[in-house]
């Protein structure tokens, strides 16, 4: 069994209104030293595969097929082997 952890964020060119809203909310809560907030998505996917390499391949392909929209989002991920 493998566990993939995938972080998805907007490409820097894309407006992230939530990030802006959260930043101003943090300022209002007196966290004034916050310079930037980016909100993205985080996925944990448990899957079985024949090898770590195969798991990596599956994770990349499913992420690009479904989990992100390549027009606006990028991702990075890690895969580790875990107990079933």
């Amino acid at each position, binding site marked *: 069994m493998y566990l993939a952890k995938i972080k998805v964020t907007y490409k820097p*060119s894309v407006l992230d*209104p939530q990030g802006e809203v959260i930043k101003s909310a943090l300022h209002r809560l007196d966290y004034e030293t916050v310079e930037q907030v980016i909100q993205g998505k985080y996925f944990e996917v448990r899957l079985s595969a024949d090898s770590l390499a195969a798991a990596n391949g599956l994770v990349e392909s499913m992420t690009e097929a479904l*989990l992100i929209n390549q027009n606006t989002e990028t991702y990075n991920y890690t895969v580790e082997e875990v107990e079933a």
Partner: protein
Amino acid sequence: MKSVVVRFPGSNCDEDMFYALQELGLNPSFVSAQSDISLADYDAIFLPGGFSYGDYLRTGAIARFSPIMQAVQAAADNGQLVVGICNGFQILTESGLLPGQLMMNEVPGFICDETLLQVEQAESAFTNAYTTDEILIPVAHADGRYYADEQTLADLESNHQIVFKYTSNLNGSEDMIAGITNKQGNVLGMMPHPERAVDPLIGNTDGQNFFKSILATVATQGVN
């Protein structure tokens, strides 16, 4: 004229659309997104608003893989009319039938209102019956900000694919885009809801000409 409304799990403007099509003589029926039948017989295919698959992940992202979408793609390639309203628009961009993407409103939050639209293309398959270039149409969305890269925006402009623009900045859309077509002009997506504006009792009939345009287009082109 035969039209069809695709129902995705979580669609919620499917009946509104059906009634509007019925009242304006577009002879609608329903099809489930889970079925994989051909849509070759229909002159116009409507993807209604709602929250397909809960809009989980991203709006339209999961609906795009529904079995029916192959038939929708084939119909689009075949030159039949394909219309996505609101969530339907989001599904069309996710599936690549239309360029760009619908993203969270610039000021986050759902907006329910009526908004003035500028009809940018008076001769399109979806607007030819309009006699004024400003129309008032209901909007109801949280993810309606149209986004595309600069090249795409330039192409949309030069190919006359931008059909409707907001007249004021409702949701932060690039170039105030409210609705676009594909290059061929037979696939249209828009965030506002013309199907909610067809009945005088409800107080707005500016959506009627949208459907009358489609009727006229089908009558002259005779897809079927």
